[in-house]
């Protein structure tokens, strides 16, 4: 294959924008969660109460999606800068996506299964 420098993948803006929007979602959720946790009774029941309301479950779900997408773009950007061989980078992309999806599964198990 000819060793040509190729650019022009026609994406970039979407990811850049989503990374900023997800940062906003994470910030808002973190403030709400911190306030609710600070106001909650210490102990299992108090903490459970923090995440029990339906709106809080929705907010946590949005927060989780935001973390995953934000982390994906951030980690992919690191690979773009430091990992040059295409095969290694593709393998790392795959592993990262699998790890992030596994983390999502872990959160579901932890928060919503009990």
């Amino acid at each position, binding site marked *: 294959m000819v060793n040509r*420098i190729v*650019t*022009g*993948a*026609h*994406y*970039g*803006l*979407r*990811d*850049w*924008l989503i990374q900023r929007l997800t940062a906003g979602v994470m910030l808002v959720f973190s403030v709400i969660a911190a306030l609710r946790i600070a106001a909650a009774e210490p102990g299992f029941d108090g903490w459970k109460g923090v995440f029990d309301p339906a709106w809080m479950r929705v907010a946590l779900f949005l927060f989780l999606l935001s973390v995953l997408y934000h982390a994906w773009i951030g980690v992919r*950007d690191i690979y*773009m*800068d*430091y990992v040059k061989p295409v095969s290694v980078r593709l393998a790392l992309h795959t592993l990262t996506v699998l790890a992030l999806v596994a983390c999502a599964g872990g959160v579901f198990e932890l928060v919503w299964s009990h």
Partner: protein
Amino acid sequence: MRFSVYRYNPDVDAKPYMQEYDIPLEPTDKMLLDALIRLKSHDDTLAFRRSCREGVCGSDAMNINGRNGLACITTVAELGDHITLRPIPGLPVIRDLIVDMTQFFRAYHSVKPYVINNDPAPETERLQSPEDRLELDGLYECILCACCSTSCPSFWWNPDKFLGPAALLQSYRFIADSRDQATNERLDDLEDPYKLFRCHSIMNCVDVCPKGLNPTRAIGKIKDIMIKRMV
């Protein structure tokens, strides 16, 4: 005055080294470029670029005490007793303080740095309103010295794909030009994970620009226009 100067002549040296000089300066040697010319009168093997000696041509960009700048508009007095000079980082060294700027100009040319207008050429010039002309202030003054791009970590990591602050400033200069008709094509060309979006707003470019320009702001404005086009 003590100098440590990066020396490398690929015809003679196996690898680069720093050479120490201790030379007396004359009272007229006010600028770093004057001191360099004085230094060259002591050692004529030292190679560096210079031309206009007043901050207009951008030839004598170099890394001065760890910071990119133009030798001709940097005063010796502000640099202390020991001056360390290296070539601007991230580009291949041809010899001593002279770098190969092919990569830099390839990025510059790729943004089509000229007005693209398919209307028939008018009898006289293409006119702009004073407001439209004002948009170009802070953009057209760039002298392409490469101080900004070669101080940008994103350019160091991906010099072949990320266009760098200088080329992106020039790209916005023509996107912002009311006489240009190729805005969509220009934005399409920048819609790429490398060319534009390797910029992480580190702002080294703003910090070192000898003309006081703000490439980060120009890059932000390109992103604003892209968002405006998308939503």
